[in-house]
């Protein structure tokens, strides 16, 4: 037994965690590029049928796309959503073009700082970018995102951002203890701001580890357990995306979605096959197959899987 306090465990099942997300909630997800998105959680959330969501989406292209493709999203506060190396997030783009969802655009820094301001309980946060562009001029959200005020220490008029707090942040980590202290290897995207800004935080983790493992690596802990409400064990929880240091993204599977996204019908078929047709994450991983999962495991120096590109 650990000599460290294990406290009341925050570990719950994926279904129980997803069940705590209310209809109409505002959500923010971890992840960047094709890496680190909590996709096993997103699939469970889709299976549970809830929607009407608002997204605060900085770099979580895959969660945002899948939720929008299934018609679960009303509004997105976004900074950039695209698939690196593939192209547009077509379901989202189509929903905007058809007027099915609304958006409010920011720069990456702008949206990140709005979350940070909420996490730090700051009533506003200065920013020198976004100014002069339509990111400043066009504001479509329910509350203003950007205003200008006079600096009390200089003669400048300076842009300030309003804080933005998601109801729930869901982030995927490499390892966490049962209190939610979580380590993310590689870049952390905006997880630091998301877990501070959100009213509730759900951590999905590749591995649940003893407190000793966290303590030994305590300089690498990005998610402070005191901010976390629930912890879910989710091996390969970012698949078909990758997890830095553990497994590469599966570009073939991601490409399958991207191809399907050309039409509403094909997207529906994709979701039927890969989300609604599978009972849970265990069935999803069975469907992928252990051979394929193991082929994705990365070399610990180059952080790439053998055979998926030269080092």
């Amino acid at each position, binding site marked *: 037994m650990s000599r460290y306090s294990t406290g009341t465990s925050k570990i719950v099942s994926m279904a129980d965690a997803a069940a705590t997300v209310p209809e109409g909630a505002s959500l923010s997800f971890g992840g960047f*590029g*094709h*890496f680190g998105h909590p996709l096993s959680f997103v699939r469970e959330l889709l299976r549970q049928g809830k929607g009407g969501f608002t997204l605060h989406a900085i*770099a979580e292209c895959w969660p945002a796309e899948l939720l929008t493709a299934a018609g679960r999203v009303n509004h997105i506060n*976004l*900074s*950039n959503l*695209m698939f*690196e*190396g*593939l192209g*547009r*997030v077509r379901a*989202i*783009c189509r929903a*905007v*073009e058809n*007027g099915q969802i*609304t*958006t409010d*655009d*920011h*720069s*990456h*820094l*702008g949206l*990140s*700082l709005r979350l*940070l301001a909420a996490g730090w309980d700051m009533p506003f946060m200065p920013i*020198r*970018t*976004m*100014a*002069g*562009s*339509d*990111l400043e*001029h066009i504001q*479509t959200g329910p509350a203003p995102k950007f205003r200008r005020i006079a600096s009390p220490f200089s003669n*400048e*008029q300076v*842009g300030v951002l309003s804080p933005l707090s998601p109801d729930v942040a869901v982030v995927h980590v490499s390892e966490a203890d049962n209190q939610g202290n979580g380590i993310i290897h*590689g*870049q*952390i*995207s905006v997880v*630091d*701001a998301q877990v501070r800004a959100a009213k509730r935080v759900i951590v999905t983790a590749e591995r649940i580890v003893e407190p000793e493992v966290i303590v030994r690596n305590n300089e690498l802990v*990005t998610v402070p357990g005191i901010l976390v409400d629930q912890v879910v064990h989710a091996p390969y929880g970012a698949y078909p995306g*990758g997890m*830095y240091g553990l497994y590469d993204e599966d*570009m073939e599977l991601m490409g399958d979605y991207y191809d399907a996204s050309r039409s509403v019908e094909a997207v529906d078929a994709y979701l039927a096959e890969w989300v609604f047709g599978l009972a849970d994450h265990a069935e999803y991983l069975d469907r992928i197959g252990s051979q394929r999962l193991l082929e994705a495991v*990365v070399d610990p*120096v*180059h*952080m*790439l899987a053998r055979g998926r*590109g*030269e*080092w």
Partner: protein
Amino acid sequence: MVNGEFTRDEMMTVATGRFIQDGWKAFIGTGLPMVAAYLAKATHAPNMTLMFESGVLAAEPRTIARAVGDPRLQSTARRVSGMLDGLLLLHGGNVDFGVLGGAQVDRFGNINSTAVGGDGYSRPATRLGGSGGANDIASAAKEFLIVVRHTRRTFVERVDHLTTPGYLTGPGAREAAGLRGRGPIGVVTDLGVFGFDETTKHMNAKSLHAGITWSDVEAATGFDIDRPDDLPTTPPPSEQELHLLRTVIDPRGVYLKDSPTTAIGGSQ
């Protein structure tokens, strides 16, 4: 596409790389600009520092990265953090240079990467990815370069949505908006290299790539682009540059897909 011994992609890549000065700290995305940065680092700018909005600092990948999120960048970087840290280093004035693309560019170097056509922002004909770090880079980097293919759809009189500030409405407008960076210093396309007039901030031509005529440029540009009296040919890629591009930097044609000397294709 092939112009004698090099492709238009190779010409764009080399022309882009020439803007990169040694010692610069630069934000560079994927695609041809990434290849250009590798080339510059392998030739005249060995001490440039590659930075990414994800918080990746001083990456030195062994092989060409497929994306800003590519593990190659993280596993070879001197520092890996997150987006806030990466972009606040930029905001704090620590980045010299960025390279940006877009769906539309206007005469003042303003860029649209958000929404094209239709009824405007809220109901566009084509919704695009949005700014990401581009607005931040164009606003806060000391200067930036635009790299984009040259078509009449891209070079427009007025961008439908101003995602990323060039010189906005003209002289003094960036200063009035409070932007710290100087703005765009050039535009590299598959037709030539362009700049901006010191006084008017209008886009002007600096050189045309070999085989390109002024009427090619006019036909592909939706606004009056200033033509100087003296319009040289862009210096072609050197043998060394072509060798590096084809055999060291992108031998599998990840980005330089139509190179005549390598197989077309590669991953993604």
